[in-house]
């Protein structure tokens, strides 16, 4: 692992069995991500963005090659170790928000802290702070079905950020949002990235998101065709 890197990927190959054969979703990927990056994996549908994001999030394992995510290598990645890594160090933001409908906004944001057994007082403070970051302090008692798409995604951001993770993985976070809401949540994430030095990795093909990224990794047919840092 390079100095300053929190993620290192070496010659990553990911294949899936399809019918009698195999489909290679990622082929020979080598990348490094440093702390505090605001980067995105971009490319057309089927290029392997989500597959790469899932491997970074320890939701999937490589077929070949090696990864090192926050000091844990893919060879050490048992289901329990992977779950522990996600629980303590990784936050997820999904295209469809994936909030728990029976929980209030407060309870949804509180959930990751319950999993890591944060003490009550500390937990309350963290949840209120996270909701303040995303501007939803007045919605703590609302339930997801009562929220707009933009509000739901902001709750999802608060949920991902509440435990102050080292890494946030966002898979098409603006796909279901209009332009105004998209910019709003991207600005929120950009602000959190700067304030908390959290590493953000997006998987997207949305130009609005791409406009905010400071690093763009372009994938095509499972290969990196471009890895560029953007000066802002």
């Amino acid at each position, binding site marked *: 692992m390079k100095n300053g890197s929190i993620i290192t990927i070496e010659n990553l190959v990911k294949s899936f069995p399809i019918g009698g054969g195999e489909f290679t979703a990622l082929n020979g990927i080598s990348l490094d991500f440093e702390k505090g990056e605001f980067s995105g994996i971009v490319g057309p549908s089927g290029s392997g963005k*989500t597959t790469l994001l899932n491997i970074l999030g320890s939701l999937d394992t490589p077929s070949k090659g090696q990864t090192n995510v926050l000091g844990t290598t893919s060879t050490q990645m048992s289901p329990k170790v992977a779950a522990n*890594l*996600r629980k303590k160090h990784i936050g997820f933001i999904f295209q469809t928000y*994936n909030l*728990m*409908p*029976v929980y209030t906004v407060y309870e949804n944001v509180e959930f990751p802290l*319950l999993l890591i057994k944060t003490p009550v007082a500390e937990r309350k403070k963290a949840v209120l702070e996270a909701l303040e970051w995303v501007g939803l302090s007045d919605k703590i008692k609302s339930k997801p079905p009562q929220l707009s798409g933009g509000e739901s995604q902001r709750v999802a951001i608060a949920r991902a950020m509440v435990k102050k993770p080292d890494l946030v993985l966002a898979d098409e976070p603006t796909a279901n949002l209009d332009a105004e809401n998209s910019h709003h949540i991207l600005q929120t994430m950009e602000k959190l990235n700067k304030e908390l030095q959290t590493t953000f990795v997006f998987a997207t093909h949305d130009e609005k998101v791409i406009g905010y990224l400071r690093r763009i990794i372009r994938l095509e047919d499972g290969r990196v065709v471009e890895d560029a840092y953007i000066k802002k």
Partner: protein
Amino acid sequence: MIALKLAYKNLMGAGLRTLLIVFVLSLAYVLIVYMNGLYQGWDRQARIESIAWEVAEGQYWQDMYDPYDAMTLTDAHAPLPAALEADASKGKTVPILITQATIYPEGRMMGALLKGIDTRQKILSLPTGELDPDSEEITAIVGTRMAKSAGLATGDYLLIRWRDVNGTFDATEVKITGIFKTAVPAVDMGQVWIPLNKLQEIAGMPGEATLVVMDESPEEGATIAGWEFKGHDYLFKELEDMIKMKSTGGSIFYLIILALALLAVFDTQVLSIFRRQREIGTYVAMGMTRKQVVGIFTVEGAMHAILAVILGAAYGFPLLLWTQKSGIKMPEGTDDFGMAAAEHMYPYYSLALVLGSIVLVMLTTTLVSYMPSRKITKMNPNDAIRGKIQ
């Protein structure tokens, strides 16, 4: 704790479906407790009544005595052993002599057992005080069932015929001086009770008895030659077997209700796992292992049983308490098959019964909740997050 909280929230969110399942499960609880309580109450009541009217603390049987073999009854008598005779004079035992007889009520002919009993006895509830051992005529008491089947009333004279010890037939009239009501058919149906001394006299069996009812169980190991002690274990075996048989039959009813409730829980779990794949994927993404997610869903299913206990207690507790206090009126003729059964049966709900029912329903509900939840361990979390059907 998280699992419990989540389960509670999800169940409350499901609204009417949860209420329906919880209600049917609570019905299963209440029915299990009620039905078993009824049989336990019946068993207790039958034991109490039988102890009071028939068996007391046990009986010594003459070696030949077999209540189910009429052929040996003729020979099932022997002089009362000295030890038992001494106790009889102190009121600690009740000797009973039994012979076969034929009675002729209103010109009809009926088989009966003629039982001689010490009229001074206080151990059994039989109203033997209504028998006169010293009168010229033979006095007799019968139970209400016998009185009904033979058309007898107090003051009636009844012709009886019997064979004495030598096999000689003889006959006389006895006067019905009392009719008693008992819940124990074994001392009523087909029986005529007369003073012991009179039966010993007319049967030619002076000082003899067929069985001796005891006020206290004899010391362990104490034996009397020619007599065998029968304790409660032996004497109530038939009663227990019969109650067990009836209880097994009755259990089919509440097992059907329980099965319906469990089917609903199973169905809900299958539907829940199918509809909430995205939620399952999210739990995994947030750091739960798939086994932990299985735990959440299992707890959620099992919580139906917990809510059912609360609901069941809310309406079942007063209902069961009321049945325990006021009793259940038994249908006419319940006691006709020879089992002690009072007009009102008072169910008995023991703590073990209530706790046992709770454990049974909880375990079965948890099991049927777990079975469909196992599917989660085979789910691909990436597909689950997207809600892809797996």
